[in-house]
């Protein structure tokens, strides 16, 4: 079993949802970002999404755009993000880690080289925002052949006709983008999420993780009652943006992570 499969199977046993956290690799800088990454499992993150910075994050709102800029300004690149994963894996063998980003840096790095190094570094899966199933040959197919999970985004606009195409070839989990919009914008209503979960369950047995607009432990708990996972990104990144020192950034992210984890863990009690 892959790390993602193992993790979601364990959580099912415990009857609780996963807290999935997103931070951008290298934000605010390499060392602080690595400290955050290393601290996340103990702070209650069940699955980690690590952003690969890109100059033009077209699907992201202001918080993650700025995180990308901070990371790039401080010298982060794809090689360093992979290096960060290797450093994380030195002490951590169970928490699944998924790289998330846009295709161009991978395309430039070389798809074959990227996949080989990602596998060797201990990456478990990939989320690439601008690679819909129409472009499976570009990365999804070779990545899965190499044992990486390829996690698909489904959205409110992905209708029943299209869902099978999107889910076919998805592995690890399914990420439901609960609002049509950019990251960090408004949240979906509970009704909408309930209906979406019911609809998605008709099409897949993969764990469902819900994201976009989830910022507080209370909100996370509500979602955790409906789905196998709750994704939080922009709210964590705001802790970095608002910090005046690296120590404060690290503490801010990990404290919020702990609070979110408490919310998620208590949700079905």
């Amino acid at each position, binding site marked *: 079993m892959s790390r993602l499969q193992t993790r979601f199977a364990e959580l099912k046993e415990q009857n609780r949802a996963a807290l999935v956290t997103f931070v951008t690799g290298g934000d605010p800088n390499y060392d602080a970002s690595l400290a955050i990454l290393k601290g996340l499992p103990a702070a209650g993150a069940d699955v980690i999404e690590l952003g690969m910075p*890109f100059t033009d994050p*077209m699907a992201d*709102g202001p918080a993650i*755009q700025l995180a990308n800029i901070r990371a790039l300004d401080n010298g982060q*690149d*794809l090689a360093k993000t992979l290096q960060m994963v290797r450093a994380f894996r030195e002490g951590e063998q169970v928490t699944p880690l998924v790289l998330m980003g846009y295709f161009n840096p991978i395309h430039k790095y070389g798809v074959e080289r990227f996949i080989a190094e990602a596998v060797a570094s201990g990456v478990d899966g990939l989320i690439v925002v*601008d*690679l819909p199933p*129409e472009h499976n040959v570009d990365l999804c197919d070779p990545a899965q052949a190499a044992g990486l999970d390829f996690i698909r985004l489904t*959205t409110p606009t992905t209708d029943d006709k299209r869902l099978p195409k999107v889910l076919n070839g998805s592995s690890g989990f399914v990420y439901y983008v609960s609002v049509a919009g950019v990251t960090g914008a408004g949240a979906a209503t509970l009704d909408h999420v309930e209906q979406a979960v019911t609809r998605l369950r008709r099409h897949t047995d993969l764990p469902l993780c819900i994201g976009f607009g989830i910022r507080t432990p209370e909100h996370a708990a509500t979602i955790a009652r409906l789905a196998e996972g709750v994704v939080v990104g922009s709210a964590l990144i705001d802790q970095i943006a608002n910090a005046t020192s690296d120590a404060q950034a690290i503490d801010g992210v990990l404290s919020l992570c702990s609070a979110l984890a408490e919310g998620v863990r208590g949700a079905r009690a």
Partner: protein
Amino acid sequence: MPANRAHGALLPSFHSPVENAMTSLRTGPDANGLFGSFGGQYVAETLMPLIHDLAAEYEKAKLDPEFEKELAYFQRDFVGRPSPLYFAERLTEMCGGAKIYFKREELNHTGAHKINNCIGQVLLAKRMGKKRIIAETGAGMHGVATATVAARFGMECVIYMGSTDIHRQNANVLRMKLMGATVIPVVAGTGTLKDAMNEALRDWVTNVDNTFYMIGTVAGPHPYPAMVRDFQAVIGKETRDQMLAQEGRLPDSLIACIGGGSNAIGLFHPFLDDKQIKIIGVEAAGHGIETGKHAASLNGGVPGVLHGNRTFLLQSDDGQIIDAHSISAGLDYPGIGPEHAWLHEVGRVEYTSVTDTEALEAFHICCRQEGIIPALETAHALAEVFKRAPNLPKDHLMVINLSGRGDKDMQTIVHHMEQQEQHA
């Protein structure tokens, strides 16, 4: 780079109509929206269903005689087509070589070729029942054309424009506002066209239900590159007929400037299979390609994926997009339409580049010699004409796409002339 490799293997001679059909360079893109390995649909899942809807609606519209009739009506009576093919006698005399013709797209309503595409897209938006139009703009010509058709069809209009561009193309901002558009300044990045396009995509992803995204060039996810090209191809079709009527034969060479590449592909496309015709696209070399401060994606970039398509991009070793530089806001983009990337790869079109300084010089010459103030974008193509025309025989027929007028560039020109006086 394979740009200038022999055409032999890739462009077999067209002996029979059957062979011609099989080897035509005008049939792209394929069903996946690809021109060779360029193009495609690299967008977030939220947008995929919208893009498929748009492609389906466009395919239907293309076959609908009513759509064609409506388009023809607006092209004629609203835009003012056909635009003249004008013999630039004084410039021809000055160069002393090729016979230079201007395809006068700057005479269109709103002052550039951009409106050709906007009229087509707004009719599609109407068919699809969309009430809100968004667009990105660089020099503001596409923004003005979009605001114009939105006003004409009573639709809400939001234009994203980089803050740098808003400053240097202020007259166009006012024009957009006069026609009821909301102009939203984009401060991200360098505040130019690329950043405006990111922001327009973010708007689209947020307002999927009622919004039509009017992309202004032959880039973006399929079907945009093909659709925008088809709407602009009226330029080349008219040129063909006009040249046959005026000179009794086809031209020998075509020249156009390239940012995203819509005016160029509009002129080139109907001639791609006439292999005897030399076709030249002119990129913006800014301060010079060797300085790194330029906007020449083909001559100074490598393939990558941005804004929905795979194409040549200005990017770092890490695949980060590098900001373009050009004195002309309309060419200030780090990518290029995927069909141009493909035509570059197969060697059908020669892509050259012209610096800011060369373009400015050509701008002044055109003003003085022909009494036509060209856009700074267009001045790049003129500079290339001045390099080539003197060395060509007098019976060589050269067509340059006079893609836009330069009224919008007065501020930039004045600023530059003042700088020169200070240095003098």
